[in-house]
């Protein structure tokens, strides 16, 4: 008999279940299979009613994030062979409301992302004839790492503050704000500083650092937040020493 591995998967069908509960499935074990392959096997062969999000299967789209054995993971990058002998516990991302089975409601996350104005803002926009806004490789390097985020929300599911303080804007949103702050074409760093200089923003973070640990794209959101805090602290220091200054 070919080897198999058990998956304990959270099921929640709001029309029939009072609350989420585990259901166990036995799937073939193959060492080139990731957790997402096992979930797709369940959906195709065992139980077509299982719902979960996925798309690219290669760590690019950011839609397949789930808790695997209690840790936030991209299920398309979590190999079954790392969880031997099983069972593998698969749950929806921590701290997000469950909509159905492994699918969470990301409305609040989307609201938080837009809150930080993650787009290039300029006082004056050049007319098209003037050509593109040019950037040197060095200027690109300052923010490139923070631009690699795929919005997988693993960092939110890892952050205890996100769980404790629902208004906390969260790691990916702050890293994204920093990505635009550091972009040489952008001129709205001051605006974002005002938006994020409170307890729902950067000061909510107590530097647990889990976000950076779990990020599959090495965005280092914790680093972005500390950079942001330094800017905010220097700014506060300046307005304390020079209260009649430009603010």
């Amino acid at each position, binding site marked *: 008999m070919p080897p198999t591995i058990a998956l304990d998967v959270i099921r929640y069908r709001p029309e029939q279940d009072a609350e989420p509960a585990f259901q166990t499935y036995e799937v073939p074990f193959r060492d080139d299979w990731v957790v997402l392959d096992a979930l797709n096997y369940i959906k195709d062969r065992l139980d077509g009613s299982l719902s979960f999000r996925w798309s690219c299967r290669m760590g690019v789209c950011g839609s397949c994030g789930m808790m695997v054995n209690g840790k936030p993971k991209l299920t398309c990058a979590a190999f079954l062979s790392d969880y031997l002998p099983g069972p593998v516990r698969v749950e929806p991302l921590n701290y997000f409301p469950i909509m159905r089975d492994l699918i969470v409601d990301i409305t609040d996350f989307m609201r938080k992302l837009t809150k930080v104005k993650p787009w290039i803002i300029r006082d004056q926009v050049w007319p098209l004839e003037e050509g593109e806004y040019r950037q040197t490789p060095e200027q690109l390097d300052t923010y490139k790492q923070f631009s690699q985020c795929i919005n997988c929300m693993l960092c939110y599911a890892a952050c205890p*503050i996100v769980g*404790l303080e629902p208004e906390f804007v969260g790691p990916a949103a702050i890293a994204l704000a920093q990505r635009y702050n550091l972009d040489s074409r952008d001129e709205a760093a001051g605006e974002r500083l005002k938006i994020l200089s409170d307890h729902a923003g950067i000061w909510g973070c107590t530097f647990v650092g889990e976000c950076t640990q779990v990020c599959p794209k090495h965005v280092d959101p914790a680093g972005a937040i500390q950079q942001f805090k330094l800017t905010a602290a220097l700014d506060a220091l300046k307005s304390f020493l020079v209260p009649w200054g430009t603010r």
Partner: protein
Amino acid sequence: MTTGRLTPFLWTLFSAGGTIAAFLFPVHLFLIGLAFPLGWLEAPSYEAFRLLIQHPVTRLYLFALISLPLFHWAHRFRYTLYDGLQLYHLTVFIAVLCYGAALGGSAAAAYMLWNLR
């Protein structure tokens, strides 16, 4: 919890203290805790040490070395109590207790360093 206007300043102390604890403490622990007592490096004489410590710059350095990590601890411990134990109703009391302890420790350090002969 409210974000006081002090937060950026407390964080600056926290982060300066953390940097010192991470980079300078190991050097001191290595020198005074291992290298000198085990004879890996020759220990300076008592007199030489005393002269060194009497210099105002050394005293200032020692003050920063002791005081800033106390504020690092205060900030960390405050949030450990606040978030970790979820003592939301005690937020002011916790803050006063933690930063107060760091202030007290810094004052004691200043007093001793000032009076070193």
